[in-house]
């Protein structure tokens, strides 16, 4: 009996002496690497992560509530404020959803313009992701390179619709602006400009030993886990699922384009990086094709001045740079939507954070937050 108790005491003594205590660290909402106002509560054992809890909602603006009190047209600019680094994609998703509800289709020229601008926006979004992700991991130079090159895309947007970030480029029924004089020439010039730049980023990082060590086998997630957690976009593709809404359920004019879906194998941070780099190249391909065969014709379908969609509901989703961006709209036949639900890719993808960082180190949490490519405006809406 005495032996037993002394053993117990010894065990306890050892535990307090050798094991450091669990430490709870609060990362964010003001932290340089949480990309906005994400707050992550980390439970640590030394530097090892035992568990996380995300606290979100610091940027909640009630977008869905606002939608119920605005007409369909009035709500259009609001969607740009969700994923503000990929505003064009948001606009595309919303406009197409309402068009479907109205049962009209945008004319071919408008659809082509939409594809070109959306793909430019995808490149811009991936560039911003690359810069900030690399900065989190400690490489400061890519940030400046990507911001310099993203500027060229923003210039094209500015010339097209007057805004750089929250573009509001599309309207329900098509596009409101005709392409400007020299649009095609400038986009082509941009393609020639940016292709070597993407090679330049890859030169800096892809074979960089430290980059590889920091990203390989970090934040691994398998295809099964991705699907179970509803993770979409490049994260899903990096796990080996060849699924892209542009191919699976083509919208806009994507059915006319020839491009590949890059996939990874391991589902780690490095593969996600490679997938996104490849996606940028594929987007360049799409833009090149689109510029080559952009048809003539009207850019706006015939839609009523006062939009009153018939009673009914619609779910329409597009492949945003972050994943599946869905709009679920319920109409009660009035000028205002009865309910608008946004299915934000960042929100659902962020859910996987806890699974991906368990057992990793604090530095990996930063890498994984970066690789999930979340935008808090979209997470919180």
């Amino acid at each position, binding site marked *: 009996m005495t032996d037993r108790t002394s053993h117990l005491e010894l065990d306890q003594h050892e535990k307090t002496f050798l094991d450091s205590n669990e430490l709870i660290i609060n990362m964010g909402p003001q932290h340089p690497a949480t990309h906005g106002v994400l707050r992550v509560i980390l439970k640590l054992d030394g530097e090892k992560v035992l568990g996380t809890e995300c606290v979100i909602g610091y940027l909640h603006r009630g977008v869905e509530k606002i939608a119920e009190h605005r007409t369909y047209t009035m709500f259009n600019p609001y969607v740009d404020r969700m994923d503000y680094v990929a505003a064009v994609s948001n606009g595309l998703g919303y406009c197409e959803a309402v068009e479907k509800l109205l049962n009209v289709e945008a004319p071919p020229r408008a659809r082509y313009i939409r594809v070109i601008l959306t793909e430019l926006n995808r490149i811009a979004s991936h560039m911003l992701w690359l810069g900030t992700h690399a900065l989190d991991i400690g490489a400061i130079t890519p940030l400046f390179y990507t911001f310099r090159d993203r500027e060229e895309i923003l210039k094209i947007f500015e010339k097209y619709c007057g805004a750089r970030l929250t573009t509001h480029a599309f309207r329900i029924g098509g596009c409101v602006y005709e392409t400007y004089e020299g649009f095609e020439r400038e986009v082509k010039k941009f393609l020639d400009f940016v292709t070597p730049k993407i090679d330049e980023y890859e030169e800096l990082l892809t074979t960089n030993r430290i980059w590889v060590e920091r990203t390989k086998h970090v934040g691994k997630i398998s295809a099964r886990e991705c699907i179970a957690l509803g993770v979409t976009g490049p994260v899903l593709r990096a796990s080996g699922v060849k*699924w892209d809404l542009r191919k699976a359920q083509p919208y806009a004019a994507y059915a006319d384009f020839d491009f590949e879906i890059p996939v990874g194998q391991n589902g780690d941070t490095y593969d996600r990086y490679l997938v996104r780099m490849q996606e940028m190249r594929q987007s360049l391909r799409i833009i090149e094709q689109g510029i080559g065969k952009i048809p003539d014709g009207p850019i706006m379908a015939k839609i009523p001045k006062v939009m009153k969609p018939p009673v009914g509901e619609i779910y329409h989703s597009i492949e945003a740079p972050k994943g599946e961006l869905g709009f679920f709209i319920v109409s009660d036949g009035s000028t205002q939507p009865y309910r608008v639900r946004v299915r934000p890719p960042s929100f659902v993808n962020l859910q996987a954070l806890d699974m991906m960082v368990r057992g990793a180190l604090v530095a990996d949490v930063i890498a994984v937050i970066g690789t999930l490519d979340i935008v808090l405006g979209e997470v919180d809406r």
Partner: protein
Amino acid sequence: MISRLRAQHGSGIREAVTYLGQKYIVADSSLMPELLQVLRDQEEFDYCVDITAVHYPDREKQFEVIWILYSFPHNERIRVKASYADGEAVPSAVPIWPAANWLEREVYDMFGTRFEGHPDLKRILLPDGWKGHPLRKDYGIIQQDQEWVQINLGIESGQ
């Protein structure tokens, strides 16, 4: 597929319609966890895209909860709808799709529908102590929890 489901669940499937090329099923609320389980296991809807709700204050069962599902093998989307009264518990889909976790929390946050069997049902976007569920139709657009704002932010009102 619908006929298979009808055969299994009989009159529980009230409606199975295609509107604008999109399928949806209106099901009886009593069928709920089993129907979702069947959809995942037998019909291979392995991806839970979204869970949301719509508030119809005039109906007897005010809340229509909508599950949007997608099947990777069949490249097919389906919406499942069921109505619940205020205060009635909705069975949680977390055991079926882990993705439902945050989505259900958001529905709870915005509508106040409880999800039974959810591992950690609490507010997600609004602060924990907030009163009211903003996406209900009786919640005004500039309404806010004045008490919470005063206590936590120390200001009279944001509006």
